[in-house]
C-alpha cells in the first residue's frame, strides 16, 4: 500500500508542504511534488534513501487536458533495496523551465537533453543543453501534442482509423 511505502513516509515527514498528490496504481507509487522543491527532494531520496539509480527521466505533454501543460517524470530505482519510486512535477507552458537534475545524477545529462529537444523544456544549470536526437537547426519540438505527426508543412494526420 502507498501509505506503507518507505520513501513516502519519509517524504511526508520532511517535505509535507511540497507534496501535491500521491497515487498508487498497479503497485507503483507516484508522488507529485511542487517544482521549486524538486532538486531538494531528489537529492534527499538519493542521499538518505539510497535511490542511487536514475532509471529514467522524461516529460508528458497534457495540452488542453491540464492547467499545467507539462509534467516532468523522474523514475528512481534503489539498487540496495530493489524498489522503484516515481516522482512527478508540473511545469507550466509560460514558465517552461526547471532546475537540472544532472547535479544529482550524471545520467540526467543526456535524458534532459532529450526532453529539451523533444518537448522544449529548458533545464537551468545544465552543463551542455543542446538538441540530441533532432538536427541542431531543427525548428519545433516533435513530442509536443501540437506538433503534427507527419512533420510541419505536411497535411495533418487524419488517423489510421476513419
Amino acid at each position, binding site marked *: 500500500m502507498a501509505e506503507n511505502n518507505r520513501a513516502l513516509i519519509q517524504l511526508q515527514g520532511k517535505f509535507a508542504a511540497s507534496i501535491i498528490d500521491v497515487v498508487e*496504481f*498497479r503497485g*507503483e507509487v*507516484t508522488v507529485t511534488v511542487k517544482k521549486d522543491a524538486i532538486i531538494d527532494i531528489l537529492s534527499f531520496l538519493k542521499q538518505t534513501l539510497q535511490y*542511487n*539509480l*536514475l*532509471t*529514467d527521466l*522524461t516529460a*508528458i*505533454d*497534457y495540452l488542453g*487536458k491540464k492547467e499545467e501543460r507539462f509534467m516532468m*517524470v523522474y*523514475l528512481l530505482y534503489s*539498487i540496495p533495496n*530493489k524498489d*522503484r519510486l*516515481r516522482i512527478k512535477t508540473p511545469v507550466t507552458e509560460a514558465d517552461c523551465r526547471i532546475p537540472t537534475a544532472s547535479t544529482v*545524477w*550524471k*545520467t540526467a*545529462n*543526456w*535524458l534532459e537533453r*532529450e526532453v529539451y529537444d*523533444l518537448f522544449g523544456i529548458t533545464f537551468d544549470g545544465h552543463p551542455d543543453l543542446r*538538441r*540530441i*536526437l*533532432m*538536427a541542431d537547426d531543427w525548428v519545433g519540438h*516533435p*513530442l509536443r501534442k501540437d*506538433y503534427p*505527426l507527419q512533420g510541419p508543412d505536411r497535411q495533418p*494526420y487524419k*488517423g*489510421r*482509423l476513419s
Partner: protein
Amino acid sequence: MATTETMTLNMGPQHPSTHGVLRLVLELDGEVIVKVTPHIGFLHRGVEKLAEHRTYHQILPLTDRLDYLAPMSNNLGYILAVEKLMAVDVPERAETIRVIMNELTRLESHLVWLACHALDIGAMTVFIYAFRERETVMEIYELISGARMTSNYFRVGGLSQDVPDEFVKKVGDFVDSMPAYLDQYEGLLTTNPIWLKRTVGNGIISAEDAIDIGLTGPALRGSGVDWDLRRDNPYSGYEKYQFKVPTGENCDTFDRYKVRLIEMREACKIIRQGLDKLKPGPVLADFPQVCYPPKESVYNSIEGLIHHFKIASEGFAAPAGEVYQGVEAPKGELGFYIVSDGGNKPERLRIRPPSFVNLQAIEQMSVGSMVADLVAVIGTLDIVLGEIDR
C-alpha cells in the same frame, strides 16, 4: 619553444567499428583522446510519437525495430507493460515460451556483440563462428514467428500462436551444443595475448561512477554490481528458474567480456529448464476484451470474425493510469512507461533504452586512452543505434 595543439577528428557516422550510424567527434593530443563528443539521432524515426497515434496492439511491431538484434526482449518489455496496465494473467505455457525465447534472444544479441567486438579488435575467426551459431537462432525465430529478425511474436495475453512440434528438439539441440561452441570462442580469446592486451585495463569505470551515469546490464555487472532484474524484480516467472548472476572485479573490458560469456552459459541453462517444464496448454489468456480470438474461431464463426475485427481496428480501452515495466534486456534495463488517459491509444509511451544511457559513459571510459582503445570501448558498451535513436 615548440607549441602543441590538439586535433579534431571525425569518426563516423559511416565507420565500420561504430556499429551503425554513430558519429563521434574526437579531440586528440597526438593519439591520446582528450574529449569525445557523440552525435546521435541519425536513425531517429519518432517511435514514441508514432505510438501516441496507434492502438496498443498496433504498437507492438514498432518495438522490435528498436533493438533489432534482440527483438523478443523488446516485444516482451512492451507486452508486460500493457499486461500490467490491463491486469491480464498469462497462461503458464505462454510464460515459459516467452522465457525460452527471451533467453535465446540474449544468446543471439551476445553472439553478435562477441562477433563484432572481436572483429573490431582484430580477431576475425570468432566473427565467423559466432554468426554460424546466430544463424540457428534465426532459424528458430523463423520457425515460430515466420520472421528472422522482426519477430512480432508475443501478444498481449500470451503468444500469437503455439510453437510447432519440432521446436523443443531444435532448441534443445542448440542449447546442448552451445557450451562446446562457447569453449571454442574462449579458446580463441580468453588466453589470447593480443586479446588480453587490448581488453585488460581498457575502459575502466568504477561501480560508483557506473551507477551514477546510469549503466545497466552486463556493463554494470562488469563493474562488480550484483544486480539483475530477472532475479531482483522477477517477471514472466523468472523466479522459478535457477541461474547465477556473474559480476566482474576489475571494471574493465575484459571483465565485461567474461560477464557476457557466463551470461550466455546461464542462458543455456535457463532455456534447458524452460524446455523441461514446458507442458501442453493454452498460449493466450481468456480475456476477450483485450486478446485476439483464436484463428479457428475467426475463420469459422461470424462472432469470432467480428471479435477479431473489433480488436484489430478499434483495439481496447485501457484504464486511466500509468505503469512502468523494466526488463533485463541483453544490453541492460529496457523499460516501457505507459501513460493512459482511458482511451484506446496511449497518451504517452516512453521507452527507456539501455543503449542510450550506456553510451553516455563513453567519454568517461575512453578519455586518456588511444584512439584504437576507443574502438574496444564502443564494442564493450554493446550499443545498437536503432534503440538509441528510436
